[in-house]
């Protein structure tokens, strides 16, 4: 391996591969390699090593911090794999084990559970196994490198049980709640139809004076009228008892928990109306003028009908708010074509284990996450990343489960299955975020804690006031006012305002490949004044590429061929870029000999019998090579942010090759779009001022913070925050984690399947800056929607309740009918949910690609 120190220092890859000498008697020992998660510091590796070595039965343990693996030699007779893994976990690190769930056909008794668990635990590579007679499944934690599905199946079948195919659907992906919602909707609609059907004759016969002919048949104060009204009371009863049952259940449950909600108000309202009517029909003598003893059966039936219809419509509309997540769930592949024992077999996707080789044909959906090992194709990843162009895949590239293969065939090795796949993580994150609360919601929470009891108090006050001071018939007016006030108040609209908009907004983000972590993040993103962009990997691609070749008296392709031949086998990113550039131009490279690195300056060696030097001006001058003819070009390239290197052949300057980390195509438009949104854009980089400025110029950024040490990035964020700004930070989420955490909103630019980036508030699955713009636009649109909802819901209640109490009556004689109150109440929550649903039509505007 070449070990080079270069002119421009790139990545600092420290390789500390340790070779384990086979200990005496190794035949009886097992050796395993474990993948460790969260291993970041060299001292941690020592901690893990010591912890494992302490275990009896462990002969040797070596941890490689570079590859994040632990190699353990152990005696299986004295120590279990599980014990080793537990020990590692206790030091605070994760072990890369995967979990699968296997259905078992004849799992009935408690003793079966132990037998299956034991059989699995004896299988090498199994960390833990939990069987359950309840679900007839066993959940196995296993080390993907050590075992396969076949081995697990063999273990289960060796103790006499049958593995069932197809196995259960992963509960994290299926949605049983939807069926319940559908059933609820149908039940409410049946209740509505009953209430509506009964309401029509009840309305007509309750106001006989308004219907021509009826008042003659049942004149005011007649026995006919009283009899008809008594019959109406009986007919209305099923509406109250069945269609309105949820209100009474809610009232009762609420009382037991000393809480009150919309159901409480409706239940009291309709009961009051019903009881009043009952008294009016049964004991008209109690009224000052018995002929004025009217009934309100219509209030009971119509209020129930309207409110129940409102509830049903709300369920329908709420179902649409979670459309985005349903789409994501629907993306999941059902079957996978797996290579087992050299044969291609179709398996349910749940049976695929890490390490399986999967075969993908044109038009296939890719079942799980993995790495291409053979073949090539273009894959449509738009459903996950939002990127509309198909992505070329070659061996070594990552593929994401649930994406669609387009043209070619290929094979890939599964790296993540079940709940670990990118899709499953996305679904989980979106769900969690949709369930989280925006800070704005806290105000509503405080209000709604007092809301319902307050409305009840207001209704009683209104009743008393109308009874004491109101016009005759006082009892009739007081009752109408009481019922109307109770019914018009709508705590639901308040409660629905924020969560529904949030659900739609966060779902919309997911559709565009933007994962917003929480309501908090969404609300903060709206207020951003400044966004800090990390340069490498965020504005630029993060991989240097060959950009220029300049020759003096040589042929350009010769200069490149010689430089690339010298760098062949190089692991330095700059060297790799030159080699790749040469390969892209189909140059055939030669063998280099006598290679050596000149620390801080460059490299030298022989290619085709000629001495080649590649490096900076100092390297050339030290060897008396005249470089003046190209020094202006060199300066120009350096000013453009490139890394130019002189090439000398046999002591003569031959030319220049330049390498640069190219700016992503859409970085410039994204910066412009951010500025159009009124956001200050700042670039942050560890690179020198000159390179940084050059890149900043290309994308149109004015404020540059260059030569910032990695540890100081968070500090720079804080400095900007001290200027009084709300700051967003965009970075890769690994090197920039502290800065992302410091920022008010941390955006992590993700690549491929690693979507669950801890430090970030927002993850952009597609590695483009345009996502930052879209995320901010979504947050602004969502928060605007939330405010509309809140203003609407508060305004409705603040205006509606006093009107219902009759405050306008003394001035303009306005008194609401309970029927209108019921309609207003039922449709206010539907309006809120429908307004939230408008967000579904959000399209990223200014960030138009």
């Amino acid at each position: 391996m070449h070990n080079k120190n270069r002119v421009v220092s790139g990545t600092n890859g420290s390789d500390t591969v340790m070779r384990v000498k086979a200990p005496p008697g190794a035949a009886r020992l097992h050796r395993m390699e474990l993948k460790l998660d969260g291993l970041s510091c060299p001292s941690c590796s020592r901690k893990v090593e010591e912890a494992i070595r302490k275990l009896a039965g462990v002969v040797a343990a070596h941890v490689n911090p570079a590859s994040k693996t632990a190699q353990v030699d152990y005696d299986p007779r004295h120590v279990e794999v599980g014990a080793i893994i537990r020990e590692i976990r206790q030091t605070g690190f994760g072990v890369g084990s995967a979990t699968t769930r296997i259905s078992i056909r004849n799992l009935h008794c408690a003793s079966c559970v132990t037998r299956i668990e034991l059989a699995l635990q004896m299988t090498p590579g199994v960390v833990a196994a939990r069987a359950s007679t309840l679900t007839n499944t066993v959940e196995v934690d296993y080390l993907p490198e050590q075992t396969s599905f076949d081995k697990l199946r063999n273990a289960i079948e060796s103790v006499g049980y049958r593995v069932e195919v197809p196995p259960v659907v992963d509960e994290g992906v299926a949605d049983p709640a939807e069926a319940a919602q559908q059933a609820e909707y149908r039940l409410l609609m049946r209740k509505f139809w009953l209430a509506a059907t009964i309401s029509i004759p009840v309305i007509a016969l309750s106001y006989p004076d308004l219907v021509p002919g009826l008042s003659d048949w049942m004149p005011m104060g007649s026995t006919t009228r009283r009899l008809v009204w008594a019959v109406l009371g009986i007919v209305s009863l099923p509406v109250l008892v069945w269609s309105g049952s949820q209100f009474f259940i809610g009232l009762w449950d609420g009382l037991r928990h000393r809480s009150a909600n919309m159901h409480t108000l409706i239940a009291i309202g309709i009961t009051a109306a019903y009881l009043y009517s009952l008294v009016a029909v049964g004991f008209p003598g109690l009224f000052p003028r018995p002929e004025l003893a009217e009934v309100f059966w219509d209030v009971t039936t119509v209020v129930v009908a309207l409110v129940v219809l409102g509830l049903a419509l709300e369920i329908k509309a709420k179902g649409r708010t979670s459309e985005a997540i349903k789409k994501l769930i629907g993306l999941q592949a059902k079957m996978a074509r797996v290579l087992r024992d050299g044969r291609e077999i179709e398996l349910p996707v749940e049976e695929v284990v890490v390490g399986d080789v999967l075969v993908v044909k044109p038009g296939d959906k890719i079942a799980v996450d993995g790495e291409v090992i053979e073949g090539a194709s273009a894959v449509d990843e738009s459903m996950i990343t939002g990127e509309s162009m198909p992505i070329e895949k070659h061996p070594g590239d990552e593929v994401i489960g649930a994406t669609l293969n387009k043209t070619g065939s290929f094979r890939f090795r599964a790296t993540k299955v079940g709940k670990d796949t990118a899709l499953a993580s996305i679904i989980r994150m979106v769900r969690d975020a949709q369930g989280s609360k925006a800070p704005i919601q806290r105000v509503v929470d405080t209000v709604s804690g007092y809301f319902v009891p307050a409305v009840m108090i207001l209704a009683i006050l209104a009743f008393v006031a109308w009874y004491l001071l109101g016009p005759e018939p006082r009892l009739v007016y007081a009752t109408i006012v009481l019922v109307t006030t109770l019914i018009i108040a709508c705590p639901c609209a308040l409660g629905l305002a924020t969560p529904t908009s949030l659900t739609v907004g966060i779902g919309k983000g997911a559709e565009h490949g933007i994962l917003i972590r929480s309501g908090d993040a969404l609300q903060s993103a709206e207020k951003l004044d400044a966004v800090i962009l990390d340069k490498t990997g965020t504005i630029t691609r993060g991989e240097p590429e060959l950009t220029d070749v300049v020759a003096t008296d040589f042929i350009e392709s010769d200069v490149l061929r010689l430089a690339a031949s010298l760098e062949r086998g190089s692991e330095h990113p700059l060297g790799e870029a030159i080699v790749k550039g040469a390969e892209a131009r189909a140059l055939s490279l030669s063998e280099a000999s006598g290679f050596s690195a000149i620390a801080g300056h460059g490299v030298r060696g022989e290619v085709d019998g000629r001495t080649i030097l590649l490096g900076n001006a100092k390297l050339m001058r030290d060897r008396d090579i005249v470089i003046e003819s190209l020094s202006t070009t060199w300066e120009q390239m350096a000013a453009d942010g490139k890394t130019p290197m002189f090439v000398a052949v046999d002591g003569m300057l031959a030319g220049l090759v330049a390498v640069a980390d190219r700016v992503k195509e859409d970085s410039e438009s994204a910066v412009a779009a951010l500025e159009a949104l009124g956001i200050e854009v700042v670039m942050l980089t560890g690179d020198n001022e000159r390179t940084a400025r050059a890149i900043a110029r290309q994308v149109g950024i004015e404020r540059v913070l260059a030569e910032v040490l990695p540890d100081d990035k968070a500090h720079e964020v804080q400095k900007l925050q001290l200027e009084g700004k709300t700051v967003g930070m965009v970075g890769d989420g690994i090197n920039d984690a502290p800065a992302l955490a410091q920022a008010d909103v941390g955006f992590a630019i993700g690549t491929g399947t690693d979507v669950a980036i801890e430090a970030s508030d927002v993850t952009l699955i597609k590695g483009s800056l345009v996502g930052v713009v879209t995320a901010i636009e979504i947050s602004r649109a969502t928060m605007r929607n939330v405010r509309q909802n809140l203003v609407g819901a508060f305004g409705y209640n603040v205006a509606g309740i006093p009107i219902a109490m009759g405050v306008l009556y003394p001035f303009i004689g306005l008194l609401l009918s309970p029927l209108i109150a019921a309609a207003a109440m039922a449709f206010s929550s539907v309006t809120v949910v429908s307004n939230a649903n408008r967000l579904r039509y959000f399209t990223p505007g200014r960030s138009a690609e």
Partner: protein
Amino acid sequence: MSMDRWLVLGGGLALIGLIVWLFWLKRSTGSRASEAVSGYQEAMILVKGGYTPDTIIVRAGRPVRLNFRREETASCSDKVIFADFGKSAHLPTGTIVPVELLPKETGVYEFACPMGMFRGRLVVE
């Protein structure tokens, strides 16, 4: 003022008093979470028309596991939100869903369904 008016006034005021007492003044003492061998402070919460118990008392600095069991289909209660902890959980009907929290500081933390129809309190001592 006639007799019936006095009656209505008195009755109204009494009802208001009852509402204030019932919804705002009366507080349940709450139930204390039991400490399991696993080191978790565990409590079972029934979700049906509300949370039963609705006040859970735990000790600060130790992990808490609240096992929710929902036995109804009302739309609000399908989720429980711990806003102060930034946590939420889906509660499918009939399944026990554990929610794990680590309360570091003492205080009263509310949990509720998304529309706030059901409310509960986690009292950290």
